[in-house]
């Protein structure tokens, strides 16, 4: 492989933060002799991508295969992308500093919709044709995975294949298959045929995309180009997760990266059943790892990396049936070494706060809660199974225990939301603040702060709210205005997101294959790093929409009848369409659905469909 380091090194003296590009971090694996080479890309900068779980897990598993090497690549910061273009330096991997185009396969993780233009930036900077139909046998196989792969269509023309669901086994199967066929001299097309037969893999070029009317009549948006291809792609699930070791080799970055700490994955899945939450719907069922497994992985990981913080990562760590025992053992194991144990998000009740208190030590910064909606009515609609009493118990416990700030997450524009729900957010925040002031000693009252952060509802595929439209940006701003004017106390601050990027997210999240042209045109007009406020170019997206003839406002706001077939109907995450429809109906009636790890099975379809079971290590704390 070509070593680009001498050329890169010459440019680094003037780069913004050169340590992003230098490799050589503690813990990285380099297999120069492997004959098959895979490069895993996070389509944003090193700082944002290095801690990404998919990058870590997939590099570790692929590097575990004899004769295969996995390297990492990230998108350089905008200024350095420009420098590289000017200098004709193509995008490189970190470990070998080799051009991406020289790898056998490149994997790109799609963690959010706003990464779409960065995918094109990655491929273009790598001198790899960004449309799959322009690639030749000499180009690497380009595969995608991650949350956005559950609706692959807006990305379809850019990828050779998608891996749906948990990738640790499926990606290895794809690469092994590709290596075997490449060695036999098979063409790209022949390899893709074989990959399409691997469970969990979707090869869009083997399916024609149908017009909307035809799709509704036919019962599918895609039509296989020949017989024998799967018509529904079922997500992959790593069935051995709970039993597998929680220990993973870990790279320790030099750059101050986000989530720069040891990450130990304690469980997968969350069945609380929030009706807007894609992660909860597609990650089922719940699988817990044992306390022993987690404690030994943490001890080993901390010793090997030298980190002073460990995060017990998952969608709902404080729901782990053995969480108290786990935290007590970890506290003992880490005592006196200045090591922090962090829980990314805790459940909204007194128990959650008690668990957070177990590891907070004396330093109590802020505590984060996500009531999501301001009234009980709307919380029931979205199936956020918390009552006002739960919320107050959590807040009381937090302020008694010594916390002085709390951050509350809400969503604006949820289906059925009215002005009363918005005023409900203000009222809830005010009552939380009043209780907190009553609890803390008089001298500390001035320190009490409540921060309200609002995100605009984005309908997500494979959730019960997938049929619901987003509210208009102006309406979103009006509701934010109403919320701000309803809040009386100055100790309560309100933050919100610019609705224009949420609009793009909504369109791409539910779009069909036609959206790819919009992404391409926006990128050609300079859109990239759309998730960075300072880089977002509204005009590029607006002009692109006119050029390709889509109306993003209409697409984002469109609500469908639950009988309507959506553009990802050929992708299954295990939850059945019937379950999603039933849940949508329950939402309309404000009826709640229980969490199957605390109560009876709610028949979402995942367990019988995938032949798996919920795996908990004991009885969960209700």
């Amino acid at each position, binding site marked *: 492989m070509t070593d680009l380091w001498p050329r890169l090194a010459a440019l680094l003296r003037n780069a913004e933060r050169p340590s992003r590009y230098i490799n050589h971090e503690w813990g990285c694996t380099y297999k120069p002799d492997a004959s098959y080479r895979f490069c895993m890309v996070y389509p944003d900068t090193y700082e944002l991508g290095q801690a990404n779980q998919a990058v870590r897990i997939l590099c570790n598993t692929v590097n575990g295969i004899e004769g295969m090497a996995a390297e990492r690549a990230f998108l350089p910061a905008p200024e350095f992308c420009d420098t590289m273009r000017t200098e004709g330096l193509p995008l490189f991997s970190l470990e070998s500093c080799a051009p991406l185009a020289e790898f056998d396969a490149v994997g790109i993780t799609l963690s959010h919709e706003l990464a779409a233009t960065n995918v094109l930036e990655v491929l273009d900077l790598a001198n790899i044709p960004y449309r799959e139909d322009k690639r030749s046998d000499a180009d690497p196989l380009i595969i995608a995975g991650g949350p956005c792969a559950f609706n692959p269509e807006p990305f379809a023309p850019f990828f050779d294949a998608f891996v749906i669901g948990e990738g640790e086994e499926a990606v290895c199967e794809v690469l092994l298959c590709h290596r075997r066929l490449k060695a036999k001299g098979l063409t790209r097309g022949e390899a893709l045929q074989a990959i399409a037969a691997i469970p969990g893999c979707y090869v869009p070029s083997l399916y024609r995309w149908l017009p909307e009317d035809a799709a509704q009549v036919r019962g599918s948006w895609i039509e296989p180009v020949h017989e024998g291809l799967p018509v529904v792609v079922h997500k992959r699930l790593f069935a051995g997760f709970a039993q597998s070791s929680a220990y993973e080799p870990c790279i320790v970055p030099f750059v*101050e990266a986000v989530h720069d700490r040891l990450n130990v994955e304690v469980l997968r899945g969350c069945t609380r059943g929030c009706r807007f939450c894609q992660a909860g719907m597609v990650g089922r069922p719940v699988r817990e790892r044992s306390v022993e497994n987690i404690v030994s992985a943490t001890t080993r990981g901390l010793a090997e*990396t*030298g980190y002073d913080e460990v995060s017990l990562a998952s969608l709902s760590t404080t729901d782990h049936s053995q969480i108290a025992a786990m935290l007590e053992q970890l506290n003992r194991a880490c005592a006196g*070494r200045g090591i922090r144990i962090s829980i990314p998000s805790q459940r909204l009740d007194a128990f959650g706060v008690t668990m957070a208190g177990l590891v907070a030590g004396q330093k109590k910064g802020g505590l984060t809660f996500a009531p999501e909606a301001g009234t009980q009515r709307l919380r029931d609609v979205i199936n956020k199974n918390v009552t006002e009493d739960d919320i107050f118990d959590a807040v009381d416990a937090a302020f008694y225990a010594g916390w002085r700030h709390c951050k509350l997450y809400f969503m604006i524009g949820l289906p059925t939301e009215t002005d009363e729900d918005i005023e409900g957010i203000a009222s809830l925040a005010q009552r939380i603040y009043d209780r907190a002031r009553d609890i803390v000693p008089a001298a500390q009252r001035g320190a009490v702060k409540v921060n309200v952060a609002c995100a605009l509802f984005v309908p997500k595929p494979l959730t019960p709210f997938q049929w619901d439209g987003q509210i208009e940006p102006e309406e979103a701003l009006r509701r934010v205005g109403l919320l701000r004017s309803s809040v009386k106390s100055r100790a309560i601050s309100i933050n919100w997101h610019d609705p224009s990027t949420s609009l793009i997210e909504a369109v791409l999240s539910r779009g069909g294959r036609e959206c790819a042209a919009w992404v391409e045109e926006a990128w050609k007009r300079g859109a990239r790093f759309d998730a960075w406020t300072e880089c977002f170019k509204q005009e590029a997206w607006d002009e692109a929409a006119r050029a390709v003839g889509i109306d993003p406002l209409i697409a984002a706001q469109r609500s469908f009848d639950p009988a309507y077939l959506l553009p990802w109907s050929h992708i299954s995450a295990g939850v059945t369409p019937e379950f999603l429809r039933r849940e949508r109906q329950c939402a309309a009636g404000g009826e709640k659905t229980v969490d199957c790890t605390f109560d009876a099975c709610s028949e979402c379809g995942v367990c019988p469909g995938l032949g798996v079971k919920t795996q908990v290590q004991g009885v969960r704390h209700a």
Partner: protein
Amino acid sequence: MPEVRLFRLRVFFCKGGRLALLSHLELARALERTVRRAGLPYAVSQGFSPHMRIAFGAALPVGVGGLQECFDLSLASYVAPDKALEALVATSAEDLMPHTCNYIGSKAPAASVAYPLCAYEARFSRAPEAPLPVPETVTLTRKSKEKVLRVADYLEGEPVWDGDRLTFALWSRPTGSLRCDTLVEAMLAQQGAPAAPGGETLQLVSLTRTAQHALLNLL
């Protein structure tokens, strides 16, 4: 609480290769992690957010390497210096390699101020036609404010050229210091057009702090 006896270990290391591109903050974090990996009995500060008791030497600019860099680590129990060094070497990146460890007194000046005079070596893409003149002043702009430094206030003696290498020494003053890279860039900025038509302009290839001197050593 009675004062607990701590053992102050001064560790010298090289910062070289591509890791010369680390910033001071990145270097500090990398060294702390090395100490943790080495399993040394480091002391932890008391208070709200307990952290390792470690203090770093004078900062090097991004892109500048060092042969005699150092940090002070407070240990809660005594470890023989060669044993401490062995443990650190085993958990250090090749381009951040410790080479000497010794204990210092509890009253000894901190690593960051112990060595006010530093020697540097710059390597260039080729030897200059004639030694580059040293500018009289260097102007710094920070947050749109300008500050003029008199080079003579910082420079010790005259810079010495040897082919494509330049060596010089700079004092750090209580009022501030002149960065080694700033001086070299200012010298480069003074070079005229290349002698031969189409000839290459002189470029900095590497810059290294080769030694740090304590006042005592200079007397």
